[in-house]
């Protein structure tokens, strides 16, 4: 008989990728979606492996072979931490199946352990995608050794554990502190956003502090610092690999496993209390006649979307991270002497590649337009706004309003938030680099048009690929198909626009024209949209 925590883990995993649904349905659309998802997953995995292999070969070629495995572990740990932090306490608390699971004969520790394990396994997939090619490249350059393979394998299996635990612990602490408050969602979201902003600021500061006169020096410093300062446990792995200290890998595994065990033990006494406060069904607020307000159906739906966004910390954090980065970038630029930086680039370019000087001077705003696209596409609340209706979607879909009104109301917050943030960033960039009229027009128009594009594309994808049977909001706002497609697609488009920026404003204008056409097409398409509770 299998342990109960294993059964709980299995049940959760069955719902993650939609494979069980595809296997057991006669609906061809569901099967097609699953196949499409599997293909997309394979493509992304291959791209990741190719990207990592390329970097590993470059670093090993620069003579940094011994530092590469530890740096890769540190990097995966940071990325895992970052994305786990976006989930916050939502992997443990206020899940829709809380009552069902807690009424089963299973301990709280088993429930917490299984939830944590699912998060770990998902992140382990990413970690394997990074570490597998790194390990191969490492052995090609350093020569194969069974002992080293065992060390890397153990380190890889444990690498996501500590970051997942630390990020979940932070999320749990925030959740616990605010669980009893009426505006807990908003406060958690704000704290999460502030924490996210602090990490971004620190990472920017770290990147700048690693600057060295030459490119190879930069890379060596960054690789070394990753393991040494940013994620010190990775340095222990490096020490074992180099034969300096055998205890390193044992310390790495021990700390990772101990942290997870300690977390489960520490949280279990408070698990029910925190959930009870979050799922509070008893506290009510006295009604006042003055609360009655009237508005148009669209305005009312829009207000409801904003309230939904601001009362869910995981939705807020995942939904505004791109916009937040744009604001942070804009604020940072206000305090940076951009002219000095441009002069420095110009001085370097004049000696090494004089033809680049004119190119940069002319095309910087257009390159920045690509950057704006990249950041706007990083997050899109619209891509999960429909799925979040979940099992209560019937109520909304039965309202006497058109599907188009509902879909546009769900797209609007994305447009407004991304639009405001990207306009601010664009204005600061234009002012700082002294852009001409064409530069201002290109950047500001891209900010507005791509914000609309992202919003409409997000809700279109969510309309075509809804996921209503979620148990945790993080399932849809972080890793559902529409969100993944939109974020990866927007990143590809952003890089493409940066690459095409050498064509000048023509490229940006053509890009914006295509976006406008698509936006109009989607709005027209939504006229015939139908929403069914299913």
């Amino acid at each position, binding site marked *: 008989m299998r342990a109960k925590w294993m059964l709980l883990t299995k049940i959760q995993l069955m719902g993650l990728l939609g494979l069980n649904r595809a296997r057991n349905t006669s609906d061809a659309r569901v099967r097609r979606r699953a196949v499409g998802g599997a293909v997309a997953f394979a493509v992304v995995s291959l791209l990741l492996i190719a990207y990592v292999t390329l970097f590993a070969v470059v670093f090993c070629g620069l003579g940094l072979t011994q530092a590469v495995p530890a740096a890769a572990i540190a990097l995966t740990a940071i990325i895992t931490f970052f994305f786990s932090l976006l989930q916050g306490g939502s992997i443990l608390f206020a899940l829709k199946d809380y009552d069902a699971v807690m009424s089963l*004969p299973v301990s709280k520790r088993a429930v917490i352990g299984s939830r944590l394990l699912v998060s770990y396994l998902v992140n382990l997939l990413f970690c394997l995608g990074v570490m597998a090619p790194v390990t191969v490249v490492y052995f090609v350059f350093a020569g194969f050794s069974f002992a080293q393979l065992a060390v890397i394998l153990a380190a890889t299996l444990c690498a996501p554990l500590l970051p997942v635990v630390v990020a979940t612990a932070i999320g749990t602490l925030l959740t616990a502190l605010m669980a009893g408050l009426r505006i807990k969602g908003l406060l958690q979201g704000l704290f999460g956003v502030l924490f996210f902003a602090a990490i971004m600021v620190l990472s920017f500061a770290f990147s700048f502090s690693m600057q060295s006169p030459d490119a190879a020096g930069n890379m060596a410093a960054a690789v070394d610092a990753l393991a040494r300062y940013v994620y010190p446990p990775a340095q222990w792995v490096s020490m074992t690999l180099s034969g300096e200290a055998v205890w390193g890998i044992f310390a790495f595994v021990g700390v990772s496993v101990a942290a997870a065990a300690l977390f489960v033990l520490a949280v279990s006494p408070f698990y029910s209390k925190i959930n009870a406060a979050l799922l509070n069904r008893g506290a009510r607020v006295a009604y006042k006649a003055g609360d009655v307000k009237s508005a148009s159906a669209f305005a009312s739906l829009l207000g409801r979307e904003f309230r939904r966004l601001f009362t869910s910390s995981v939705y807020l954090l995942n939904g505004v991270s791109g916009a937040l980065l744009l604001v942070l970038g804009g604020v940072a630029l206000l305090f940076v002497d951009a002219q000095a930086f441009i002069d420095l680039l110009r001085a370097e370019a004049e000696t090494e590649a004089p033809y680049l000087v004119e190119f940069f001077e002319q095309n910087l705003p257009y390159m920045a337009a690509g950057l704006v696209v990249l950041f706007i596409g990083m997050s899109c609340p619209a891509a999960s706004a429909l799925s979040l209706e979940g099992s209560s979607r019937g109520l909304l879909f039965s309202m006497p309003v058109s599907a188009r009104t509902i879909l546009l109301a769900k797209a609007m917050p994305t447009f407004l938030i991304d639009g405001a943030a990207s306009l601010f960033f664009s204005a600061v960039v234009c002012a700082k680099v002294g852009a001409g009229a064409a530069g201002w027009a290109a950047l500001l128009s891209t900010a507005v048009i791509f914000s609309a594009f992202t919003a409409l594309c997000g809700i279109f994808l969510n309309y075509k690929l809804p996921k209503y*049977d979620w*148990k945790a909001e993080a399932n849809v706002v972080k890793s559902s198909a529409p969100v993944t497609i939109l974020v990866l697609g927007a990143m590809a488009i952003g890089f493409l626009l940066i690459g095409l920026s050498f064509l000048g404003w023509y490229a940006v204008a053509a890009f914006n024209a295509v976006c406008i056409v698509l936006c109009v097409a989607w709005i027209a398409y939504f006229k015939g949209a139908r929403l069914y509770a299913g």
Partner: protein
Amino acid sequence: MENKILEIRNLSKSYGKDKKAVDGLSLDVYAGDIYGFIGQNGAGKTTTLRAVTGILDFDAGEIYIDGKSVKQQPVACKAVTAYIPDNPDLYEYLTGVQYLNFIGDMFGVDKALRRERVEKYAAMFRIEGDLGSLIGAYSHGMKQKLAIIGALLHAPKLMVLDEPFVGLDPEAAFKLKQVFREMCAAGSAIFFSTHVLDVAEKLCNKIAIIKGGKLIASGDIDAVRGDESLEAVFMEVLESDAR
């Protein structure tokens, strides 16, 4: 001596500082009891049921199931209890039979017994042909039936149900009442909340009325209602706390 299956002693639970959802509630449910729990919306019924099943921590008091403390031995208590919430949120990405296997695994029901009970109850509630379908494709009533079969799978000593008849078709409701009686005859106990006073009156041998978190009346149904109908008694209780 009667076998006490559920014992609630001075149960209190507050939400926030001001709102006391359950206030010093005590009652006993014995083997063979079909115990109805009635009260207005927000009276504290669901809070009590959730505390009994170990889903909700409570501030004060004690709850014992089959002589074991819910606080001290929660897993042992849950092993002999089945809970069906008012709106069962089942895993929509599982098929009916996958869900039942999961429940069977969690309660350690052996394979032969599991097959026998699934066949028996699925046929009884007429969903045997749907067990291979995804739960997401089920109607509300079918989900309710599946949750009931899952609850019956391990032959619990105590069944705790929150509004179990909502969403069930008349035949399924009739069968469920039949199952309740069979279980009680076999030594189990049923503790359920309902707003359908007619059902409570005909089905239950004991009744408890809760108002504002406090138990207003409890005991044998004949003693509680006296010569009046349960509806009349309930309406009186709403008017006055003392009975």
